[in-house]
């Protein structure tokens, strides 16, 4: 009896396990079948649309058969938030999906690992209908992989008239690549001031000095801090999004140099501006005025930890209402006070140049496998989201529950609202980022008021006001990096290797003895050029010579 039981258990266990394996295989194979049938649809559809060019079927009464569109959404790991199924995705399905007979299916893309996620989805043929990225070079990389289909502007204008009206100029200006209409965009107001630099006011008081406005003044402050036994200047490791060179550009920016060297993805090692920058930090490092272990600060958390624990006296970050920087700082040192600081990393003979965002937000491409009907539904979805009432709902939630309007007509969030229509931790940004990058009330004054209300931690409202004033004063010094209308192929080929070499070289240049600086810098410049930078510079120069870039005014 007992033996029989054992046998039965073994059999059932084996059966369950094999069944689950088979089921898993079956699941994946059936989905791949679905994907491939989708792609045959699209090829068939394309040829038919070519023959009946410029005539689009009107679906405003809804699709005759159920259409499924897959929309990507960044998963930032917010606690208690299901990115693909929540109050707002259900609302979207209810309001848009049911009306037009469309299933709006959200696909989670992990924010910290997005390129890898996308690449795997593309390889498996299951990528969502929109393939997006915040920066152009990676979007171009997706395009070069063959994952994005060219779009037809007439078709967008037909299915998404309001979206097209908002974005036509941006799309026509920036959306072309190698002569094809590759990308569509979300709107972005390039005037931003939410990245703030702060300095320890109580340390300044202790040494009897004012908030520094140039690198030279900052150096004096840091020397006084050192004598008083306080901390150093905070610094992170420059390993991506290279904007370190901007403050050192000098009195006037050389247009050709700026177009050639300023690149978020590839550090401008051999530019004389970079040399001046590294030289300055070499001096600071050797005098013991900057964080001596800055090269360990590979992420924001490391720098933040040093700031709140009082090791360094400066910090820079995107301010938000629920930031823990100030509360942690106060918990460690109840006397700590912070002040807004600007220009402390800019030499007196230069200007506060900064990376200015281009006029577009999210860069989006339509998946190669997306069929005609899905594409139409997609455009209709963008158009629906562009409607002010829908956008407002996604950005603020339910009036009277999530927020109340104040006398300026601005939504004031209800404190600690925890109802079912609670917004995600970044105010549902990852849903409405398809059409707009920042909440915009169409008026700078109103935007400022709203930002102070929505972004400033309590008691720190002055930081946003100061950041606004400073950004306003520096408006002339924003530089948009050059956008080429053809793919810079050498950049995709070498950028990862160059990044590794840059980090190695620049850390050596900053940390070496002052008398060794020139030799170290020269050595790494040569190596950097040999490792592919020369090719990138040559390719960019020839693209500029043939005019394959977007001219900024």
């Amino acid at each position: 009896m007992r033996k029989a039981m054992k046998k039965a258990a073994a059999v059932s266990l084996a059966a369950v396990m094999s069944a689950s394996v088979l089921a898993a295989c079956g699941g994946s194979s059936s989905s791949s079948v679905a994907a491939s049938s989708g792609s045959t649809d699209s090829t068939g559809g394309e040829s038919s649309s070519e023959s009946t060019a410029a005539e689009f079927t009107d679906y405003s009464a809804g699709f005759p058969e159920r259409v499924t569109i897959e929309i990507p959404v960044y998963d930032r790991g917010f606690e208690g938030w299901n990115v693909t199924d929540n109050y707002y995705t259900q609302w979207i399905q209810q309001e848009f999906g049911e009306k037009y007979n469309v299933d709006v299916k959200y696909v989670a893309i992990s924010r910290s690992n997005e390129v890898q996620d996308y690449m795997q989805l593309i390889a498996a043929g299951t990528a969502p209908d929109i393939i997006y990225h915040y920066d152009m070079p990676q979007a171009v990389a997706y395009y070069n992989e063959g994952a994005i289909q060219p779009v037809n502007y007439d078709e967008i204008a037909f299915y998404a008239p309001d979206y097209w009206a908002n974005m036509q100029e941006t799309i026509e200006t920036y959306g072309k690549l190698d002569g094809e209409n590759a990308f569509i965009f979300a709107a972005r107001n390039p005037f931003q001031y939410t990245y703030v630099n702060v300095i320890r006011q109580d340390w300044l008081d202790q040494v009897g000095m004012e908030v520094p406005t140039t690198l030279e003044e900052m150096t004096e402050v840091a020397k006084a801090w050192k004598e008083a036994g306080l901390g150093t200047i905070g610094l992170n490791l420059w390993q991506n999004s290279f904007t370190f060179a901007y403050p050192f550009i000098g009195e006037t920016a050389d247009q050709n140099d700026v177009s050639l060297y300023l690149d978020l993805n590839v550090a401008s090692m051999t530019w004389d501006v970079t040399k001046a920058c590294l030289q300055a930090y070499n001096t600071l490092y050797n005098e013991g005025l900057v964080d001596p272990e800055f090269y360990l600060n590979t992420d924001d958390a490391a720098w933040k930890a040093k700031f709140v624990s009082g090791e360094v006296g400066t910090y820079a970050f995107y301010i938000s209402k629920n930031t823990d920087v100030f509360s942690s700082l106060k918990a460690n040192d109840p006397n700590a006070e912070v002040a807004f600081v600007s220009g402390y990393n800019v030499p007196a003979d230069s200007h506060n140049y900064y990376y200015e965002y281009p006029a577009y937000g999210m860069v989006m491409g339509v998946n190669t496998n997306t069929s005609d009907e899905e594409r139409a539904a997609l455009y209709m979805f963008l158009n629906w989201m562009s409607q002010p009432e829908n956008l407002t709902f996604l950005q603020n939630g339910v009036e009277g529950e999530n927020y109340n309007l104040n006398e300026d007509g601005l939504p004031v969030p209800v404190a600690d609202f925890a109802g079912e229509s609670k917004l995600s931790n970044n105010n549902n940004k990852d849903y409405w980022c398809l059409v707009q990058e920042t909440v915009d009330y169409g008026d700078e004054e109103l935007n400022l008021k709203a930002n102070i209300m929505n972004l400033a931690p309590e008691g720190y409202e002055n930081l946003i006001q100061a950041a606004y004033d400073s950004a306003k004063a520096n408006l002339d010094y924003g530089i948009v990096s050059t956008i080429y209308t053809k793919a810079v192929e050498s950049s995709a080929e070498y950028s990862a290797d160059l990044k590794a070499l840059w980090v190695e070289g620049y850390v050596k240049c900053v940390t070496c003895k002052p008398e060794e600086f020139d030799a170290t810098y020269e050595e790494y410049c040569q190596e950097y050029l040999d490792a592919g930078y020369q090719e990138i510079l040559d390719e960019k120069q020839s693209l500029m010579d043939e005019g394959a870039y977007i001219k900024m005014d």
Partner: protein
Amino acid sequence: MKKDTISVAQKTAKKNAFAVYMRDNWQLYAMLLLPMLHLIVFKYLSYAGLSVAFMDYKVAKGFFESEFVGFEIFEKIFKHRDFGVAVRNTLLLNVLDLIFSFPMPIILALLLNEIRVKWFKKTTQTMLYLPHFLSWVVIGSVAYQMFGLSNGVVNALIANAGSSPIPFLQEDAWWLVTYVIIGIWQTMGWGTIIYLAAITNVNAELYEAAKVDGANRWQQCLNVTLPCIRSTVVIMLIMQLGKVMGGSFERILALSNAKVTEFTTTIPVLVYRWGIQSSKFSDSTALGLFQSVIGVALVLIADRVAKKLGEDGLL
């Protein structure tokens, strides 16, 4: 005629025996199906992916539509400026590991074998196994807490003792030393298991005979235990040689920083940088394939040499 019937009878008997055997034991075979399936799907079918090394692979085009380019990718990676450095560093780090980390479990197993107090032996063993279960990410951050220049515990002690701090992880030569030592610490306990098992198989009579001949503990260890576990040591060595061109990527990622870059560019690091960071899957696969081929060659050569020297070998 008669002969035939007999042979038929024998055959049916044989068949019956097999059927009986299967009827009694088929569950065991059913249980085996799953691991076999796992092996086939994840270890053998994935070999097909190596074809990427011979194509100009584009993810959206997939295996069948990407262009076949023969050995072009290999030519490209062999010419890459980081390739030579990576091979040098990989060999350096792994040979150092082989010299310093490989003997440690053997020595430790011999020492543990001499401990007679049961509970002490058990406790020591457990504590030695523990590091094996820590991920390199955890070990890396603990290492920086311990050996960091400005915040490290060890350097705080050194500073209090009046000496100047030592850049354990922040200078190339010191980093190499720390890398090897942390590696030894992490692997030595777990490595003892197989040697301890081999030691328990040593015939007790040999020890008695040695005692009668007047051998002390040290001499017993040298002349009885070591020769008896020699074949195990050789097999472990052969398997270790297969890893000389590979090595742990996480270990380098967790322990390196931007200041120490002299020895950190290894083959696995390049595979990660090309394959994951810049999505150059062909380059990365080709490099991985190169590494595996060298690894297999080393194992085969070592196996031959071991057999020539009169050992059993691995294959």
